[in-house]
């Protein structure tokens, strides 16, 4: 009974860090760190701009250098997002135009089929009418001939 987990609380052990099981997350985080060259370039740019516009140089230096609180990483992500969004829009446009074209083709096909059907119906109707007319003529002619034959007298 002492081992019953419902009564005795289970001893919880601390979980290993996520990067131990998923090292790619750590790798991605490491990748976001700015390189040394940009850090140096940011420092030089900051110093130079501070002569022209005090305060602005520091901000720009941070942007280029990608230092702590830098907006350069998020700007790149934003650009990437925008690029992806534009790409999606392009795909959407292409897909829409393809859909519209297919719809047009289907409509045209349907229209042609309808016209053919109407034409066939018209021809069938005409033939039925002709058949009725000729049949009526043959019947009346037969009646007329029989009437004439029945009236002969030698």
């Amino acid at each position, binding site marked *: 009974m002492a081992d019953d987990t419902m009564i005795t609380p289970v001893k919880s052990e601390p979980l290993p860090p996520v990067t131990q099981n998923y090292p790619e997350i750590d790798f991605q985080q490491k990748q976001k760190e700015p390189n040394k060259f940009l850090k140096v370039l940011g420092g030089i740019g900051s110093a130079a701009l501070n002569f022209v516009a005090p305060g602005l140089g520091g901000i720009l230096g941070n942007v280029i250098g990608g230092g702590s609180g830098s907006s350069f990483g998020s700007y790149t992500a934003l650009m990437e997002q925008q690029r992806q969004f534009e790409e999606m829009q392009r795909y959407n446009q292409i897909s829409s135009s393809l859909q519209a074209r297919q719809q047009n083709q289907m409509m045209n096909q349907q229209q042609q089929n309808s016209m053919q059907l109407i034409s066939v119906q018209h021809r069938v109707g005409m033939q039925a009418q*002709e058949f009725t*007319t*000729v049949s*009526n*003529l043959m*019947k*009346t*002619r*037969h*009646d*007329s*001939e*029989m*009437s*004439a*034959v*029945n*009236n*002969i*007298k*030698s």
Partner: protein
Amino acid sequence: MTIKEISVSNEELRVMLETGYILREAAKFDESETIFRSVMEFLPESEIPQVGLGTVFLQRGDFQAAEEICEKALELNPSSLYARVHYAEALLFGRQREKAENELREIIGENPDSPHSQTAQALLEAADLIAPN
């Protein structure tokens, strides 16, 4: 022995005429023509075998001969509606539509209840098929 010496009853003549019509409808025009010509020998005063002969030529497609034969039949009996209808029919097939239609309307106007008038009416209705404008 001449034709006049052969005794033929009306019933036999009717059977001969009906045989002529059946042969005509079976497209046996030569046999049908022989029958009608034979009946013409027995009934020289009657327009009926002559009109029958005219219809054989009509179905052969010889509209000119059909018209002439029906015209001769009309000379025998100018009041015969049977002869008039088939004369008009020959005119219609011979592309004389206006003349034919006038004749057919006249027949219908004079005897609306006659079976020949019904044929005339049927011919008028079929005029577009027989002789399109």
